[in-house]
């Protein structure tokens, strides 16, 4: 944006110089190439502020029961909301992260986290979201959102979270 303005400024300057001075300094040589362009007004720039970028927080976190990866009703409602966000913002792409609570083994939880991410992803596809806009990864029990060691913390950690990877 800034660069474009500078380029244009240089172009206009060059144009002016061109008009009166037949001889060109080597320093100003580069802008000469740009000079033939007509003087366009940067119209499309003003459109950008009107689009509100989609944030991770626009997506509802999907929660799971202990050792389970099936979608309970609340999970389906959350995913329906998330599918709508993606439909309203057709260029947005997301990564679904599958997570587990701290109980259970590292490796089993990696697989379980992936089952959760996949269950969420499959339901999104059922709801009509193109699979090309969805990616997934399992973090197992490695990235808890709550470091507590009680049911309140565990239930928050058994989740599938949506992360925007491209607007």
């Amino acid at each position, binding site marked *: 944006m800034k660069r474009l303005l500078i380029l244009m400024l240089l172009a206009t300057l060059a144009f002016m110089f061109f008009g009166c001075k037949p001889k060109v300094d080597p320093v100003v040589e580069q802008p000469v190439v740009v000079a033939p362009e007509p003087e366009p007004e940067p119209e499309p720039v003003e459109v950008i502020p009107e689009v509100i970028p989609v944030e991770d927080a626009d997506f509802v976190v999907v929660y799971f029961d202990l050792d389970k990866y099936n979608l309970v009703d609340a999970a389906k409602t959350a995913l329906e909301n998330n599918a709508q966000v993606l439909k309203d913002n057709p260029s947005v792409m997301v990564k679904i992260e599958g997570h587990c609570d701290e109980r*259970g*083994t590292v*490796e089993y939880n*990696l*697989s379980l986290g992936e089952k959760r991410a*996949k269950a969420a992803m499959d339901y999104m596809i059922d709801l009509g979201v193109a699979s090309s806009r969805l990616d997934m990864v399992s*973090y197992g029990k*490695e*990235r808890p959102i709550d470091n507590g060691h009680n049911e309140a913390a565990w239930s928050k950690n058994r989740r599938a979270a949506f992360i925007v990877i491209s607007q």
Partner: protein
Amino acid sequence: MKYKIVIELVVVIGLLSAISFAQNVGDYQGRLSDKSSFEPTKISVEETRYIGIDYITASDSVMMKNCGVILRRDLDFSPYFEIVLFDKFFLKHLELETMTISAWKWLGTKYLIKLETEFPRSNIRLRYRLFDVDTKREIKKGTFEAKKTEYRNAVHDMANEILKSLTGDNGIYRTKVVYAKKIDDTKELFIADYDGQNEFQLTDNKSINISPTFSPDGKYIYFTSYMDGDPNIYKLKLKNNTVELFAEYPGLNAAPSVAPDGSKIACVLSKDGNSEIYLLNKNGRIEKRLTESRAIESSPTWSPDGKTIAFSSDRTGAPQIYLMDADGKNMRRLTFNGSYNDSPNWSPKGDKITFVSRAGDFTICTVDTTGRNHQVLAIYGNNENPHYSPDGNHIIFSSTRLGPSEIYTMDLFGNSQRRLTVRGGMSNPAWAPFE
């Protein structure tokens, strides 16, 4: 009050799992009921004597004392031995100035070790003499010399030699262990001596690095890392600490386990939408898919003869341990006790598999490969990731028994439980093969 509750818990849990507990110095020691068939040999190490001619410096004097401490700890770690300590009151009772070999015999000692040291140049020279207390005869002696900075290695070498001469077994005192340490939101891999000393950081990629496992020649560590965003398997060369990508199939690339002959790597891939066990060749290319079910298959581990693979599967609703031939055929369930059994690791002796079992909290158990003889070895807090030492006489694992997650070791009976780390956030231990 709290103390009382803990005591009561100990009693209840002890009764439930048919284990009785004895309090040892500092560490608690779990004694298995079937351990009565195995009586450890009593052995003693006298205080180190200085035999140099120069005046000894304060730091050398500390080092000299530590040699005895380390040797006692090493030998006591072995299930074969039980250290008998010098007893001042006993000495007084016998009206003796110093311990004599007869006095040690009174204390029940079978073998006695006398240590002598001197400090030539910037080295330490350690000499041991091993006595059979019954016959009062010297049966073995040896000398070890090392730089002062590496004096622990000299003591460990000595412990290996003493163990070998008395039992015929190779000791694990010079073997290494690897584990993951939580640093902020990341986990990096560290390597250390078997007793937790000389810790060295292996990875520094500011991501999650887990499930390390050694190649059978001890030269490489395979592990799962998120260093490139997704969980892939990487191979770390210990010689120069370089890392290369090993497997990056879509989805999970996890739980690597190298075949005993080093030719194949069993691991978990989810490229078909669900975790399955695969065999990869040395270049990371798929050689064979071993499992095919809609359930989670995970954590493969090889039998020492390379013919069988144990793994976990939740095909019955929760993880249980199964065995299959190394070509995926002849699948059979191994564990039936308890509702959640996972994270198997096959003993290098071949006869047992150690694993994690949920009984409220997570415990470390062993079971014979016949499926019989289910035993509980470690309780209190959550105990995870058991992994056998190369001699099959010890198990390393992580535990939250004191709150923070730390690395512990114990012998194959669950005795000599020791904490290796102190800073918390430790997980995923694995034991290196013999050097």
